[in-house]
């Protein structure tokens, strides 16, 4: 069982790095969305510093949404997803491996590029540590919840339009706690409580989301 999951992990990582453009697109999108705000609202650094935590986090949510298409779509189109569901190993494990790969190639890079955006948006220096910390802790939640939406919409032609409708409401607690953790850091307050909440939410989604995704995939494949 371990061996096959390792093989799946390797295969997915390899596939992801073979098409680097797909990996870079969400990152570039993240960068662009964040740089729209100074143009649209005001380049005043003080003002930008105030809205920076929220802007960066909203950008991260949208970039994740954009990258969720990578999760199951190509496997569905070439039929390998169906074969994976037929494997003797539990679908649950397959989903967890795929979500892990998605997080490594789409969620983790967001955390590393975010400080750059923080600099551009004039985020006060106290905000950088919580920004990195919340992104590291909470982007797995985004991948896990997003996998449910990706699983439900995988066979649909208009799936891309549907996914934000399904997933964004579920992202709201993450957005609230993560961006206020960054704000607390900016003000010099402790943000341990926020991190604890995000950790609890991660634990919950880790339990619920793979089960829901696995059954969503089974429904979508039976189509």
């Amino acid at each position, binding site marked *: 069982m371990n061996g096959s999951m390792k093989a799946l992990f390797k295969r997915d990582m390899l596939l992801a790095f073979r098409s680097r453009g797909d990996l870079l697109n969400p990152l570039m999108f993240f960068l662009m969305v964040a740089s729209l705000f100074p143009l649209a609202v005001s380049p005043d650094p003080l003002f930008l510093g105030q809205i920076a935590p929220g802007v960066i986090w909203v950008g991260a949510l949208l970039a994740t949404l954009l990258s969720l298409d990578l999760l199951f779509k190509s496997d569905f189109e070439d039929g390998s997803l169906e074969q994976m569901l037929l494997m003797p190993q539990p679908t649950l494990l397959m989903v967890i491996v795929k979500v892990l790969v998605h997080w490594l190639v789409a969620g983790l890079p967001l955390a590393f590029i975010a400080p750059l955006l923080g600099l551009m948006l004039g985020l006060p220096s106290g905000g950088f540590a919580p920004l990195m910390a919340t992104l590291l802790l909470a982007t797995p939640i985004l991948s896990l919840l997003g996998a449910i939406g990706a699983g*439900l919409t995988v066979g649909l032609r*208009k799936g891309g339009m549907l996914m934000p*409708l*399904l997933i964004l409401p*579920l992202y709201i*607690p993450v957005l609230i706690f993560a961006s206020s953790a960054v704000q607390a850091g900016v003000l010099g307050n402790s943000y341990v409580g926020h991190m604890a909440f995000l950790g609890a939410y991660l634990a919950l989604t880790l339990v*619920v989301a793979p089960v829901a995704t696995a059954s*969503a995939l089974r429904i979508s494949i039976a189509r």
Partner: protein
Amino acid sequence: MWTSLKRLYHKMGSPKWFYEISTRWSPWFLLVGSALMLTGVVWGLAFAPADYLQGNSFRIIYIHVPASLLSQSAYIMMAAAGLVGLVWKMKMSFVVAKVIAPIGASLAIMSLLTGAIWGKPTWGTWWVWDARLTSMLILLFLYFGVIAIYNAIENEEMANKAAGILAIVGSINIPIIKYSVEWWNTLHQPATITMTKKPTMAPEMFIPLLLTIIGFYCWFAVWVFARTRNELLWRERRTKWVKNLVINAPTNSGAHQ
């Protein structure tokens, strides 16, 4: 007890039985609901004392609160019906889940509209990012997601199952969303006026509210029954019992036979 429960469950699974029983129950629910609504609304609007702070504008509570409560419990009912359908493969319960979705969404819209109308005289604006308004808005978004799934997936069985999963995930998230929105709200707006959260409400204000709440639930049942029967007639249009029903139905023109 157990066997009779099981029998009830199997009966509930039969579209024909559900059609017949809901046809028989609907008028009673309608009657009781209308009586309660009439009493509650007349009492609330004409006889309940005016609020010492808000004057007469608080009276919209008799529509606003029942709509909000019901739209929340409708989501839970929808998720529960979806769960029953997914676990025990009961088609009837998928039908009920499907018909609840637009009803719940429209109740959420009604709650938001009446909230906005209430907010205008009380807060001076139509919309405030108050915790309850915000979580109601997110509930509406959750309903939109479920409705969007029904619209997007053509195969009926798949659509039912997919919507069931989404509703279950959403209902797990509802308490978390509610809590986090409330927490966010206390962080950003400590000075909001809370209205419905008054610890003690005078009984002559509260009893009519209770009546309208129960009345709303009865009307909701009538509404769900009616939509379910429509849906059943369409789904089962090729079966014998529907054909018999149509043939034996009393027609207005009565030209044939």
